[in-house]
């Protein structure tokens, strides 16, 4: 009986499945505005799961027993490293995003870019330190 059903249902299924797959974000992709992925393993939807995944992402915090052959860090030192790791990760993510954007969309046109002097002077003005266009070099 399943053999009968297959020829009739099959043509419709691949298309819808492909569409669903296209909407589904890949690993590491953001999932903004994708409500239909409730079945997917969204670890950040469950508060308790969130905590665990974050922790496992950044090594065990304040582990009472350090790995054999390692000198343990103080909680502050460990927190400092984690914070540094987070900043480095954010920095690299931003750099990678710029590179990916250039790879995908190409280089910006020179005429669409803003001269440095203009940006610099406006920025110094915002910071309240512009000494009438002084050329700092």
């Amino acid at each position, binding site marked *: 009986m399943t053999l009968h059903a297959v020829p009739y249902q099959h043509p419709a299924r691949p298309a819808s499945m492909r569409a669903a797959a296209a909407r589904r974000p890949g690993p590491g992709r953001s999932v903004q505005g994708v409500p239909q992925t409730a079945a997917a393993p969204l670890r950040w939807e469950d508060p308790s799961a969130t905590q665990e995944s974050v922790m496992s992402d950044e090594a065990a915090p304040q582990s009472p027993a350090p790995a054999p052959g390692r000198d343990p860090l103080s909680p502050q030192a460990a927190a400092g490293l984690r914070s540094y790791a987070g900043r480095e990760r954010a920095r690299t993510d931003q750099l990678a995003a*710029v*590179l990916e954007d250039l790879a995908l969309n190409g*280089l*910006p046109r*020179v005429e669409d870019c803003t001269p440095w002097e203009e*940006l*610099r002077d406006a*920025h110094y003005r915002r910071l309240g330190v512009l000494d009438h266009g002084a050329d700092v070099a």
Partner: protein
Amino acid sequence: MSPSAHGPRRARVAFSDSAAEQLAKLGVMETLALDRAIVALSIDPELGTPIPDSVLRDYQDEDGVRLLYFLSALRSVVVVAYLEV
């Protein structure tokens, strides 16, 4: 606009929109450091290390400034696409 009469001919430097946005976070000292790096690049646009198989270059100086940039077709403009200070 300003007369670039003195010294060897410098390349102009322009920022992409995303690089310009990054500027907003910088303080005075960081902006000064960035400006020094930009002056160095404008004098010698080939200072940065080429990113393999691309037109981009990656420049880092001893003040912790990092610039990803490319040169315009006539090599007269350095276009900064990303910065770190």
